[in-house]
């Protein structure tokens, strides 16, 4: 089974994120990490490969040319190789441009299954994966809590407000991963050393046959109008008592406010 995992380098959310004058995230202001939700997708892919005892896990990313340093960590977790689409013309791309570029790139990578994270911690639209599915015609199976490929098809438990929906689609298909699939592993030291010699192929728009004027900031269909800091939260009360005492205090707190 050939699995492609979509990964995005994003600013480290444990640092101070700052917005630039264009109200977009200033990517130079904080270190870059693999988007956390993408790590869940990668973990799921690695587990599927391990369970099958064969196959490949390939990363696909669209990002600035500094991305290989970040993608290296995903390779260290166990992915086999990576493809990076990087081109100055892609600056300011919206979700549609991104989906178009990644869909074109996917056409050049053999795949049975494409996995994506639920959304990214910077852009956060959560629409790129669906866009790719729409553009490529791949079946789109979202919010997977369980992924069971079976030769020619894949079965997915989709999280719903009432439980699970059981979805099944023929392969190749695109599945959106969730954290319910399990914690991503830490890269082992052997994995880190091996990652240094794994290949990351960089493609420009020309390599993909895409006209630079059809993608990127100038043709973006969305615009950032305004940025506001979230309202300050009221002071948090933390109860640090043994469970029975904590439970009593919690109940008292909720009763006082007529919440229970």
């Amino acid at each position: 089974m050939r699995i492609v995992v979509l990964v995005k380098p994003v600013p480290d959310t444990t640092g101070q994120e700052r917005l630039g004058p264009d109200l977009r995230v200033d990517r130079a202001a904080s270190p870059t990490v693999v988007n956390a939700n993408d790590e869940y997708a990668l973990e799921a892919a690695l587990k599927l490969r391990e369970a099958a005892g064969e196959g490949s896990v390939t990363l696909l990313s669209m990002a600035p040319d500094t991305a290989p340093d970040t993608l290296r960590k995903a390779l260290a977790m166990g992915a086999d190789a990576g493809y990076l689409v990087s081109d100055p013309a892609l600056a300011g791309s919206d979700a549609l441009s991104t989906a178009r570029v990644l869909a074109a790139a996917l056409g050049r990578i053999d795949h049975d299954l494409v996995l994506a994270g639920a959304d990214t911690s910077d852009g956060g639209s959560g629409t790129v994966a669906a866009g790719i599915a729409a553009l490529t015609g791949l079946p789109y199976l979202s919010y997977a809590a369980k992924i069971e490929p079976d030769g020619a098809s894949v079965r997915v438990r989709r999280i719903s407000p009432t439980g699970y929906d059981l979805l099944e689609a023929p392969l190749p298909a695109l599945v959106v991963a969730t954290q319910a699939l399990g914690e991503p592993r830490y890269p082992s030291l052997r994995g880190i050393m091996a990652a240094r010699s794994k290949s990351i192929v960089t493609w420009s728009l020309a390599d993909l046959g895409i006209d630079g004027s059809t993608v990127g900031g100038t043709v973006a269909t969305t615009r950032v109008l305004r940025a506001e800091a979230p309202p300050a939260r009221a002071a948090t009360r933390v109860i640090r008592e043994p469970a029975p005492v904590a439970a009593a205090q919690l109940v008292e707190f909720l009763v006082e406010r007529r919440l229970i």
Partner: protein
Amino acid sequence: MTSFRLSDEQRELRDAVRELARERIAPRAAEIDRSAEFPWDLKELLATQDILGLPYPAEYGGLGGDLLTCCLAIEALSAACATTGLILAVHELASLPIVMAGTDEQKARWLPDLAAGRTLIAFALTEAGAGSDAGSIATRAVRDGDGYVLTGTKRFISHGSVADLVTVFAVTDPAGKRNRNLSCFVVERGTAGFSVGRLEHKMGIRGSPTAELMFDDVRIPATNLIGAEGEGFALAMRTFERSRPGIAAQAVGIAQGAIDIAAKYATERIQFGRPIGEFQMVQGLLADMDAATEAARSLLYTACAAIEAGDGDAGRWAAVCKLVAGDAAMRVTTDAVQVLGGYGYLDEFPVERMMRDAKITQLYEGTQQIQRLVVARSLLAAHR
């Protein structure tokens, strides 16, 4: 003089161990100290992440990491939990005689399991009456047919009660010259006559079991002799040339852990209407802590580079870095408690544990006094 420069790979490995230490090990440290129980879960974690495989040659399933890389890992682990840092340090220490002097058969027999972390190993040199004076060891190994019979008692043996293998130093030639009459053996757990005696109650590194090991007519095959008969003392000293930097790394790690806690506290603790970090007396403490740790770290890395490059004075490099780092760790952790004031004295904050843990780095693998002896002898010999 050989200098060091961290490679990209060393930086990546260090950062990975740091992340693991911060997220998975630091949260366990207080409980490990309180319960004084060996953290089997963290030993498993170190094995799974290949950290225990760092010091072993690649042909035996290790990562072939050089001395500096191993020290970077011990340092990163020890910043979170000195007991966990010691798991790697002891593993390396006790394996070194096999790695340095073992035959191909011996290496093939023991190293793959050690590199994978499937087995643990302890280093048994010290005895109740033979600490700094390692030449006065009383444990005997008598040749008997195609094997040896070991008799004696070892004390203060880190991992002694959890190890599957023990490298044991014993006298093979009682009439022989001092320091030329010792030999090194590997004894496997379960060998008849080999048992674990008392476990020590210690001030620090409380999760690391320190055991008394008893050898009562323990018969082992001659194929368990490491190196030649009579080479044991020299082998132990060569082992310390590569293991003392590991203790220096543990010391630097403990010091860094204490600095990080103290500096954060100084930005948060308000007295007289200001964070205490704004007061110059606190700044002075923090600056001296930082400078001492950075100096010890630089010396350690330089020593690692010199030893790895085959410097003829490896013993001095190993002693000098452990001496400086151990003393720095003791002072820095003591001052960290001072920065935290009364809170630093409570077990609610990790600095009092770090202060207790730091003390051992001035004692084991040669007391600071022994390190000074080594350094002074080397210095005087060079000027004779």
